[in-house]
């Protein structure tokens, strides 16, 4: 049975993890996402489902605990905010290199450095273009509501296990802190050891007489072999790009102009669309739900139909580079953003469309 609750985005992440049957959470508190660990501690899921909740001594420890849990075929996760996620990059590269599934949530705050605790989207490059070293990718989901914060926990784990790759929920301080209605699901049981053993032959599940040893590693000193590892990874990423692109289109049917925005910026753009349409400006929104794989194909198609696109981000202009790559200069593209923790107003966004794209 579904139940309707009013929750903060951060609480929704925690509640979804418990109810989806996640095995372990390892994290270290940081604003603006501390409610995740607080909610987990208050709910005591170790008593309900047996889920482990552990406050690690640091973000580095958290991500390496995740690495260990993932190696055992368990559904494990960590969450943090920008500076903490920076500390995890080495671990993420290792987990991607070792082809293990896990979920990481980044509730982004303004940077660089310790920056500010206010909302930002300036970690787009870090998330979608690497962050850690080597040719790897993170499957990246960008929730724009508390309901999506809840839903993407399950989706993130499903994709992570399907592709044996880390998945990232890239959120921000607005979606983490806002309270909205959310439909929550019944408790799902955690996977049994037998199920893990049967389903994931790559997992280390203890003694397995008569079967070869399973070694989890990202190290391969033989370059010939390491190139094969990379070719295999790239093949997997290509399949992911073909099958897993997700996006939402709002008022695009008759649109002459398009906002491209994700997360809380997409919500602000929806208000800007309302204001714009009241003035007779036919504007719509393309909201990437997966930031990687990026919805390049649909943007390429829209480029042939509209007069201009404005990428709206709480950053100095990061996603706009992917919009430019996707549209191949077939249409006018520009960027509008505020940064350092300032949230743009719908009026500002509409004004930017009018001056940079329509009148520019």
């Amino acid at each position, binding site marked *: 049975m579904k139940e309707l609750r009013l929750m903060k985005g951060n609480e929704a992440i925690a509640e979804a993890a418990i109810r989806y049957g996640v095995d372990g959470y390892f994290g270290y508190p940081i604003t603006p996402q501390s409610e995740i660990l607080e909610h987990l501690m208050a709910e005591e899921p170790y008593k309900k489902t047996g889920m482990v909740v552990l406050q690690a001594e640091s973000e580095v420890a958290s991500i390496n605990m995740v690495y260990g849990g993932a190696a055992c075929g368990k559904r494990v996760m960590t969450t943090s905010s920008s500076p903490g996620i920076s500390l995890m990059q080495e671990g993420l590269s290792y987990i991607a290199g070792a082809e293990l599934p896990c979920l990481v949530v980044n509730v982004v705050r303004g940077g660089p450095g310790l920056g500010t605790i206010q909302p930002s989207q300036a970690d787009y490059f870090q998330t979608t273009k690497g962050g850690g070293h080597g040719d790897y990718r993170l499957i990246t989901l960008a929730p724009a509501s508390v309901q999506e914060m809840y839903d993407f926990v399950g989706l993130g784990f499903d994709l992570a296990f399907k592709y044996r790759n880390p998945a990232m929920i890239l959120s921000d301080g*607005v979606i983490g802190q806002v309270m*909205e209605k959310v439909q929550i699901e019944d408790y799902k049981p955690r996977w049994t050891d037998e199920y893990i053993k049967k389903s994931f032959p790559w997992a280390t599940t203890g003694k397995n007489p008569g079967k070869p040893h399973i070694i989890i590693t990202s190290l391969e000193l033989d370059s010939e072999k390491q190139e094969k590892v990379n070719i295999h990874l790239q093949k997997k990423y290509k399949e992911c790009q073909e099958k897993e692109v997700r996006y939402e289109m709002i008022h695009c049917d008759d649109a002459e102009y398009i906002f491209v925005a994700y997360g*809380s910026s997409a919500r602000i753009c929806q208000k800007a669309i309302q204001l714009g349409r009241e003035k007779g400006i036919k504007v719509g929104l393309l909201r990437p739900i997966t930031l990687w794989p990026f919805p390049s194909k649909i943007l390429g198609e829209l480029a042939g139909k509209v007069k201009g696109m404005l990428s709206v981000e709480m950053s100095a202009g990061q996603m706009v580079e992917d919009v430019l790559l996707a549209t191949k200069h077939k249409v006018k593209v520009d960027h509008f953003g505020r940064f350092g923790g300032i949230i743009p107003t*719908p009026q500002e966004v509409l004004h930017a469309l009018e001056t940079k794209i329509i009148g520019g």
Partner: protein
Amino acid sequence: MTEEIIIAGFGGQGVLSMGKILAYSGMMQNKEVSWMPSYGPEMRGGTSNVTVIISDERISSPVLSVFDTAIILNQQSLDKFEKSVKPGGMLVYDPNGISRHPERKDINIYQVAATDKAGELGIARLFNMIVLGGFLKYKPIIQEEFMKKGLEKSLPERHHKLIPDNLNAIKVGAEIIKEYHTI
């Protein structure tokens, strides 16, 4: 119907909880709702504010810069948000501690002397419910039965015995609110 509200005052005045009760009650009345707090240094002393949106439609931005209604509980918040009320909108404020009163002529302004009344009745902690009651008199977006349900949903069970007092404070607010300037 869409009502976009900012509630602002000192941290500890019950700004966030007033907004939460409004949002819960809206949800119980089957409305779309959002509650977006200011978070960070201003919570720890200084000013605190929350944006509450109650609507019949899907809510676009939970963060806004102009509002249908501003509910104001201190001077700093009045200085900051008086200009953010839409023309024709509404401003409700408690005159306690206010030295510079609102000056806008294009909005409806109401005074609810909740601090004084709460002190007089010995219910200082329900001061925010008195303010809320004043607001609801002029913007009856939530019906009383749903306010009750919202309180039941938002308050922990051990505080449910306080619900009749909360509802009574809402009634008091409706009685004492008065027009300051209307258009």
